[in-house]
């Protein structure tokens, strides 16, 4: 039977057109805008070469945002991922009520960051907020802080709120990974006299490698994407102390009408993420070879 070469293209026509209009072309346009002084309103703009990029690297608020992003990244990878793993291991056994427990642990994952932000805004509120009230009640009033307006702690407060969701996400990935760990293998190790730590370290953890790679990749990408919760809770304030790149880019572009400058921030962030995207793509397409 004669194969008609255009058939797959006919199926691809609609999806690819939409994707090119709303995703692919914009990526290139952002590169172009990053070399202009466009203000987002005027019909015209001028090319100003690398001026925006020069400005970025002498901009203290950009550097501050970058530093905060690194804090997010480290916290997500070094705290949320292990915490998610710990909870997954704890709950990965059959016990009455186990399903309900797991469901409750999952719940934060289904919420939007706006809801999470609202809930945490009155946990962290200085005067009547849940955290400070609790600290004062148990006699630790010296630890009570204005969590969202103290530049020294605000980023950590935001990370804590976001981790509520991130840990649940990591847990889902690890619980799925644990399904692929054969029970008999763990039991065999038990019979051979391995204690629970050894069983975890030498048997379970190596088998969780694929889940671990995914959990870390997802956490890195999510930490660099952080926006909603920062914008809802602090707008990056006070004085940019809790700003992250996504937030700074948004504020510059849509509050200060400096879209050219905003575009150059986006490009820098893209370049930072690019390594991870490449890593992910290589991972995916290495597997493809097997088909």
């Amino acid at each position: 039977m004669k194969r008609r070469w255009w058939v797959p293209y006919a199926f691809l026509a609609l999806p690819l057109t939409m994707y090119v209009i709303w995703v692919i072309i914009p990526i290139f346009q952002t590169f172009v805008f990053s070399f202009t002084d466009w203000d987002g309103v005027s019909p015209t703009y001028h090319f100003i070469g690398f001026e925006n990029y020069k400005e970025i690297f002498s901009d203290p608020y950009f550097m501050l945002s970058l530093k905060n992003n690194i804090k997010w990244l480290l916290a997500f990878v070094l705290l949320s991922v292990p915490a998610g793993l710990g909870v997954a291991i704890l709950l990965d056994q059959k016990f009455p009520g186990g399903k309900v427990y797991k469901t409750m642990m999952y719940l934060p994952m289904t919420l939007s960051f706006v809801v999470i932000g609202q809930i945490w805004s009155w946990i962290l509120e200085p005067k009547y907020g849940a955290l400070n009230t609790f600290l004062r009640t148990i006699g630790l009033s010296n630890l009570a802080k204005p969590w969202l307006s103290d530049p020294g702690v605000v980023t950590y407060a935001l990370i804590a709120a976001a981790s509520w969701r991130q840990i649940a996400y990591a847990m889902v990935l690890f619980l799925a990974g644990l399904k692929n760990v054969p029970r008999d293998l763990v039991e065999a190790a038990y019979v051979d006299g391995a204690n629970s730590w050894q069983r975890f370290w030498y048997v379970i953890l190596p088998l969780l490698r694929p889940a671990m790679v995914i959990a870390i990749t997802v956490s890195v990408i999510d930490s660099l994407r952080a926006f909603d919760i920062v914008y809802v809770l602090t707008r990056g304030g006070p004085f940019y102390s809790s700003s992250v790149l996504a937030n700074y880019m948004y504020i510059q572009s849509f509050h200060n009408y400096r879209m050219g400058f905003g575009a150059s921030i986006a490009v820098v962030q893209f370049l930072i993420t690019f390594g991870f995207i490449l890593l992910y793509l290589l991972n995916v397409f290495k597997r493809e070879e097997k088909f």
Partner: protein
Amino acid sequence: MKRRIMKGTIFYVLSTILVITWMLPFFIAFFTSLKSMDEIMIGKGWWYPPKAWKWDNYKTAWVDANMKRYFLNSFIITVPSVLGALFVSSLSAFALSWYEFRLNKPILMIFVGGMLIPFQMLLIPVYRFSVNTGLYDTYLGVILFHIAFQTGFCTFFLRNFMLTIPKSLFEAAKIDGAGDFMIYRKIIMPLVVPALAALGILEFTWIWNDYLWSLVLIQSDRIKPVTLGLANLQGQWITSWNIIAAASILAALVPIFVFLVFQRYFIEGLTMGSVKE
């Protein structure tokens, strides 16, 4: 035996404490939503149940704070976006999983690469495109964007699922003289229903919870979705924590309900999309 019981008890105590701590923010929100502002401002402590359960707060949030309208808008935006994304990406997934042609891998790479790009790279041009085409501040503008944006992930997801369908089925249908579109509609689509369900649940939650794109593409109050409406309450209702708490719980109800009912699909979708080996 005794040791086992000990271990079991310790495990139960530990996991129960964990789960209760984990759920605390929900309890705090729930209790707050049912108190009067006077009761909150006494500062007696959030762990006390409300003295008088003020269910009226929910009515205030629903009617006066306009959550009613935002809810409707969220449905108007989310439902067509999810259905559209599923349909559009089922076409591309079909093409990329069943046909061998030279541009197959490069096109797949474009879909997958695009889904990982930081959203900031799209923000300014998409905003500009919307303004220039008159799609800015319309339902259609947001819906079309969601469909296009989610096509990357959905294509990748559905394609991986379609690859697990035996090739022989496809060949047999071809020999029987079925046209390409017929094979897509009558053979492949019915077989991918479970994947569509998992993906649909996931996409529903994501699009329902979207904040950023509505922030960029919508201006008028009358078409704002729940997330945007809720964030705006901070301004007008800033001193009414109880109302904001009630509104937050209302906004959370839909995704939580969807999750509880379709939990299996949700988890499956999330893990299929990522851990798939």
